[in-house]
């Protein structure tokens, strides 16, 4: 039966040795080992967290950059558009101004021409009138050179008056 009966001497030694082992291991082995492992685990956790944080920050930064880029691009487009518009309007302005100028020039030229024309016409009219008068004087002088002719004319004129 001594196989399943505890032995006093062995129990004493076991108690002594195991207690000492537990004390020594707890103080000089488990404590530093667990501390180191815990510290490392904490370090790894922190590093992972930092990496995650950095990743998020990078993403935020990238998003911000994208935003800035987008804004800049939009601004550039706006500026380009405005510039184009300005250029267009300037061209339009210039065109319309030029047209106006041209119109004015043409107008004044026309007026000049007209006035010149009118003057020329008036001169021609005067000239024609003078000529007519001279011709009429010559004709009248010829018509009235004889009495017959004066009579015939008077008759003709009288007939014309009648017709009216």
């Amino acid at each position, binding site marked *: 039966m001594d196989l399943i009966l*505890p032995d006093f*001497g*062995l129990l004493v030694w076991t108690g002594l040795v195991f207690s000492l082992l537990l004390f020594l291991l707890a103080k000089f*082995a488990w404590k530093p*080992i667990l501390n*180191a*492992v815990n510290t490392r685990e904490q370090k790894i956790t922190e590093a992972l967290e930092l990496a995650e944080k950095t990743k998020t920050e990078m993403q935020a930064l990238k998003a911000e950059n994208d935003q800035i880029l987008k804004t800049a691009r939009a601004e550039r487009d706006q500026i380009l558009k405005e510039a184009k518009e300005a250029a267009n309007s300037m061209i339009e302005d210039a065109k319309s101004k030029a047209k106006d100028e041209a119109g004015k020039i043409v107008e004044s030229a026309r007026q000049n021409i007209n006035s010149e024309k009118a003057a020329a016409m008036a001169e021609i009219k005067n000239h024609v009138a003078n000529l007519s008068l001279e011709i009429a004087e010559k004709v009248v002088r010829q018509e009235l050179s004889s009495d017959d002719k004066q009579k015939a004319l008077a008759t003709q004129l009288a007939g014309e008056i009648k017709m009216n």
Partner: protein
Amino acid sequence: MQQASKFSSLLQLFVLALSFFIFQPFANASEEENFNVGEMIMHHIKDAHEWHITGPEHGGTSLYLPIILHDNGFKIFSSKHFYHGKEVAVKANDSTTYHYMEGVGPAKGYALYHEEIYKLDNIGTSNGQPVYVLKFHGEHPRNASPTDLSITKNVASLLFGSLLILVIMLSVASFYRKNGAVAPKGLAKFLEPIIIMVRDDIAKANIDQHKYHKYVPYLLTIFFFIWINNMLGLIPIIPGGANLTGNITITLFLAFCTLLVTVFSGNKNYWGHIFWMPGIPVPMKIFMIPIELIGILTKPFALMIRLFANITAGHIIVLALISIIFINKNIAWAGLSVPMALFISVLEILVAFLQGFLFAMLSALFIGAAVEEAHH
């Protein structure tokens, strides 16, 4: 928990049956001239005051371990004075002859019988020399025993194993102390996953998140103590081979430690569940008190029996398989017995780890139950 108790009662039955079968051939061992398997196995799995290395049981090579007796002061001498003492045959009143070793020199006045030391009765003198006898009552001597604090085979193995654990763990600790919290190398690399397993899968998994830290050193010590001593027990030659973790004294002590830790960790909720189980009618509450009180003891008792039975059984199976050769007295049987013994030995390597793990796991489970807060 219920399963564990059922398991333990089964194991108790098993152990009783086992001891019965083994003791049968053992009782009439002295009459038989032939190789006695039971006697050989029992000799190997039980404690001894020498560490037998090679050769026949008597006159072979042995490491004689110191005997320490407390009998009106301490007496320390080598166990050689028993093993190389005087073999005495005595006829008991049941007409059976018993053989014991009477001590010589400093061991005079003591006798070693079945590895137990007895004080001999002085029955006068012969040729000026005192004459001592060991009186038997049945198969047990009637004489008193001195307090035996000898460094037996198991104590020596215990000291060696503990020293080994200490050396291993201190070297691992010194690695971390030197290198700080870096990735482990060498021995630390090998042991760190196991240490973390004990911390996370045993302690953290079973004990409250905020309280488990306190119990990790105990669980680590108990796990490595059992595991390494189990492994040492599998090595057939000195300094291994002692059936330390298969010794009931060791398993009793370890189980008692777990009992102490559990009882002293128990909080109000734990004791409340034992003495006034909530949620059941009052007569049942009263009925449950003795059951729960027995339950406190059966849990560590199961731990004690489980470890003892598993390791002892492993040793017995390996020895029995090797014995096939000697029973049949033909070396050809080695072709069967050696592969089988090898297979069991390899299996025992797994069992060595498993039993350490189980002991620590169940200890953690019991502690976890003791420190659990009420959750309603």
